[in-house]
Each structure stands twice: as structure tokens, then as C-alpha cells.
């Protein structure tokens, strides 16, 4: 996917664990893990808002657009 999640970087900068964030924003650890590992297909505004509010950052600090190279098989 062209959107990359930088949650691990944001957490490392704040020296915070995923479990702590999960407890703080009231999201299950499993869901947060899906987000962190890039398996998520979508993110709710409410989830993004909660994460940004707790980490004190902007959505752009967590999400990054990385253009994909066109497939060679086409």
C-alpha cells in the first residue's frame, strides 16, 4: 500500500510502548498492532484523533504517502 504508518517511529521518539498507547486511547492492543504493522485497510477519524491527541502530533507525523512503482508485469 502507498500509505505507510509511522506509529513505531512516533512511539520510539516518545519512548512509549504500544500497550501504554492502547490503554491511553482505549483501543485494543490487537487493533493497534494491526495499525502498527501496516495490515490495516482503513483508519477512523476518531482513532486518528485519539492517537494524535495523546501523542501530541499531527496526522502527517503518523501517516506518510509513498508512491508505489508501477508493476513491471503490466
Amino acid at each position: 500500500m502507498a500509505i505507510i504508518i509511522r506509529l513505531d517511529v512516533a512511539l520510539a521518539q516518545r519512548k512509549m510502548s504500544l500497550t501504554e498507547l492502547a490503554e491511553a486511547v482505549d483501543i485494543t492492543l490487537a487493533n493497534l498492532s494491526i495499525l502498527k504493522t501496516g495490515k490495516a485497510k482503513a483508519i477512523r477519524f476518531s482513532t486518528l484523533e485519539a492517537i494524535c491527541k495523546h501523542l501530541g502530533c499531527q496526522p502527517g507525523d503518523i501517516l506518510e504517502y509513498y508512491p508505489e512503482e508501477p508493476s513491471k508485469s503490466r
Partner: protein
Amino acid sequence: METKSTPNKPIDQRIRTIGSIGQGICTAGMIWWFYDMFIQSLFYNPFQGTYSFSKTMESYGISGDIPGIFNMVFTVAVFMTMPVMLLFWLVRKAFGEFAKGSILSPVIARTILGVALISFSVAAFKLLYWASESPFRPLSPLLPTMKSLNSFLHIQTSGSLLSVFEWLLIGVVCLSLYWGIRQAIALKEENDLTV
């Protein structure tokens, strides 16, 4: 995915119950169909003394090459019995998934696709059967033989065009369900991966 989701327990329990009941009905249906279509075709009524094929033939006043007739009747009986047995087995498999509490699973989608394909096959066979007694006959030399066997074996194969449409309708409904369930599975997957 909901942040703190709670499963809907009463609905889940109802699905499991319906699944178990459906499995029981399908098992009973398979046994009944096997007896009614297969056993009774070969051994007219095993509980009233006609437990051998020759006695069954005697009861119909048929004599001649009994082993030859048996092979033919056996083939026809298998041909008539198997599709519906397979249908029961597939539907039982789908109910088994319900009993586990799983509705939108690829197994159910595949099962429904299987039911649709069998229904289309039966419709095609019935269309040929109908054509064998219509002005377009004979499309196949085997079909008149099957028709004559049907007359004394009581194999419930209706040659009417209506039954062709019935099976076609079942096939189309199941195919629509298959596409619907496939779409629902894709949506569920997307929903499960929405944080």
C-alpha cells in the same frame, strides 16, 4: 474494527441452534433420499419381502436378462440419487459452519456455489429428459431407455418443463447468494482491518 466490541450473543446462539437443527434435517434427508430413491429402486420394498432384485422384477412381471437389467437400473438409480445426495451433503456442510457460529466464511460461499452448479446440472439433465419426449427427440439414445425404466421404477423424475425452471431458479438464487456472500466476506474483511 470496533474499539471495544461486544459480540451479539443471542443472535450468535440462534445461528448455532439453527445450524444444528439444519444439520439434523440434512442427515435425515440424506438417509431418506438414499432409501427412497436408491434402495426402493433396486429392491422395491425390502420390508415387505421383496428384498432381492429378481423378486422386485417379478413383482413388476418383468423377466429376462436380470443381471443386465440390474446393471442398467443400478446405473440409473445412482445417476438419479447422487445429485440430490450431494446437495444434502453440501447444505449440511453449510449448516455445520452455522453451528460453529460462522456465517460469512469462504466455506459457505463455496458450498452455495456447489449447490448452484449441481442445480444447473440437474436442470440441464431434466431439459434433455423433457426433450426426449418432445418433438425434438431423441437427443440421446440412452434417454428413451431411462424413460422406460422410470415408468416401472417409480424414480421421481419429472419430465415437465416446469421442473427445469424450478432447478434453474434454485441455481440462479444460489449463484446470487454466492456473489452476495463473497461481497459480504470482502466487506467484513475490510471492516475487520479498519482500526
